[in-house]
């Protein structure tokens, strides 16, 4: 078992995050003989992708064999579980909740991502969940989010969630994909391959079957106090509603997600350069060695580009070796190239289209924490003259609540850029993603 009560505080390499990328990085670094700490907020390794309960045999997980292989390889690693990293000082000193700071010569940041959300009328009703949240309830806690579940948004992850729910015996009332993957794909073969590969065995598509509807969006959620149904409609290529196609679908749970938002607070704290990726996400820039623009800070997984677990593992293996001062073999580099091409094809196949913006009514809540409505966001631009999302945040408070803009940051940036009549730029997202404290901490911990 990995050592979880280590007294030691100095390591050659500290890996932050124990999902696919972090596990791979820790394993690869440890294999070279250096000392490695793996710091993670979860009670067990695996991250969101391999989220599981104690005693889970992996039956309902994908790539479980990969997980158990990696887990076996981190025996020599000090796994510091249930410690959420909230700040890293240059040099590097890693501050995590509930323990003394960890010092390391090199870092691998593998913080992962969470579901990307686009606001729509009714999305604050209890019973509306993120797609990842519904999957976490199932994989991590053995609980179905509802008796009749609608899955909606865009991207192949919807199929994975729906197939998992069906596999567990849930009632799935529909799976609504806003895009038309086949039609949009510039690399149809890559996408077909992707869906096939994601399908593993039975094939998600075959499992989900006729419940899968493309060019269809949930445009509103309804209910008195709690969710009782959604309105879905056909949309055109720009995600505008095709008039007359609206229909109501009764459900007690909605699992919604429009891709992923990487967690950028740690790279931003350390001063790493960022860029806007093809899927519209703010990501940290990594070189061929997976090193960021800050010497000694390596990156792996979604933080340097959303690409799924297989790519995350490859990047982790490369980052772990380089962080340990050993270069990665050409096989790994070739694998990374192929997996990145594949991720790029998926981004092209499932793009966000601006039509969703027209359905965010003046009254629709954009920021759930501070309950900031769309009208307040647009007023900050129209009446108060804000010309960037960061100023809108200061004037109208979206992103000022407990989640620090993790949920609404992307949407707020899109609304503001659109109101200003321009496309989203990197600075829009960067202005909302910087968080001096990456995790909720007690005042005592801040006082240190």
């Amino acid at each position, binding site marked *: 078992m990995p050592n979880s009560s280590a007294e030691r505080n100095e390591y050659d390499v500290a890996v932050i995050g124990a999902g696919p990328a972090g596990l791979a990085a820790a394993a690869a670094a440890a294999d070279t003989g250096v000392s490695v700490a793996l710091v993670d907020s979860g009670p067990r390794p695996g991250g969101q992708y391999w989220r599981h309960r104690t005693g889970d045999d992996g039956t309902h997980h994908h790539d479980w064999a990969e997980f158990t292989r990696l887990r076996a390889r981190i025996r020599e690693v000090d796994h510091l579980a249930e410690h959420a990293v909230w700040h890293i000082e240059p040099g590097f000193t890693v501050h995590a909740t509930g323990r003394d700071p960890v010092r390391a010569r090199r870092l691998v940041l593998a913080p992962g991502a969470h579901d990307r959300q686009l606001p729509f009328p009714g999305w604050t009703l209890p019973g509306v969940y993120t797609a990842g949240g519904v999957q976490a309830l199932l994989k991590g806690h053995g609980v179905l989010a509802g008796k009749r579940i609608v899955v909606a948004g865009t991207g192949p992850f919807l199929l994975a969630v729906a197939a998992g729910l069906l596999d567990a015996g849930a009632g799935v009332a529909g799976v609504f994909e806003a895009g038309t993957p086949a039609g949009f794909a510039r690399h149809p073969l890559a996408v077909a391959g992707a869906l096939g590969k994601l399908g593993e065995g039975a094939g998600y598509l075959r499992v989900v079957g006729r419940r899968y509807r493309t060019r269809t969006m949930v445009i509103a959620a309804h209910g008195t106090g709690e969710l009782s149904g959604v309105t879905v409609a056909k949309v055109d290529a720009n995600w505008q509603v095709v008039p007359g196609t609206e229909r109501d679908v009764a459900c007690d749970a909605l699992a919604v997600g429009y891709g992923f938002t990487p967690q950028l607070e740690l790279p931003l704290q350390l001063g790493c350069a960022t860029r806007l990726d093809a899927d519209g996400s703010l990501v940290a820039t990594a070189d061929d060695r997976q090193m960021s623009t800050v010497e000694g800070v390596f990156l792996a997984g979604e933080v340097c580009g959303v690409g799924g677990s297989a790519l995350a593992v490859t990047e982790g293996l490369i980052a772990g070796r380089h962080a340990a001062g050993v270069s990665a073999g050409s096989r790994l580099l070739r694998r990374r190239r192929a997996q990145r091409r594949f991720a790029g094809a998926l981004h092209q196949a499932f793009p966000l289209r601006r039509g969703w913006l027209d359905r965010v009514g003046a009254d629709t809540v954009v920021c759930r924490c501070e309950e900031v409505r769309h009208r307040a966001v647009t007023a900050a631009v129209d009446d108060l003259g804000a010309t960037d999302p960061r100023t809108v945040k200061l004037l109208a408070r979206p992103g000022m609540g407990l*989640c620090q803009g993790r949920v609404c940051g992307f949407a707020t940036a899109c609304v503001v850029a659109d109101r200003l009549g321009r496309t989203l730029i990197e600075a829009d997202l960067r202005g909302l993603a910087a968080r001096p404290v990456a995790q909720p901490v007690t005042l005592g911990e801040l006082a240190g």
Partner: protein
Amino acid sequence: MRFTFDGKAIPAEPGQSIGAALIAAGHRSWRRTRIDAAPRGIFCGIGICHDCLVTVDGAANRRACLVEAAEDMRVTTQEGAGRAELEC
């Protein structure tokens, strides 16, 4: 295993979060927001959104989606964001 939610017994399996056990028991919301007094429960399910806050054994602002249920835990609803300092 059982914990109490506003005095009512809620069954939970080992390793289950408070939030997951509440959903399994048919509760979808357990908090009211500060401004609109709107009901909220779990949204992200992974500790990001803070929609799911509850008071656990007197400590406010615990994320129900993260805190594992334990025997005889006393969970209560809270209004708004709570005034106590944030806890992990």
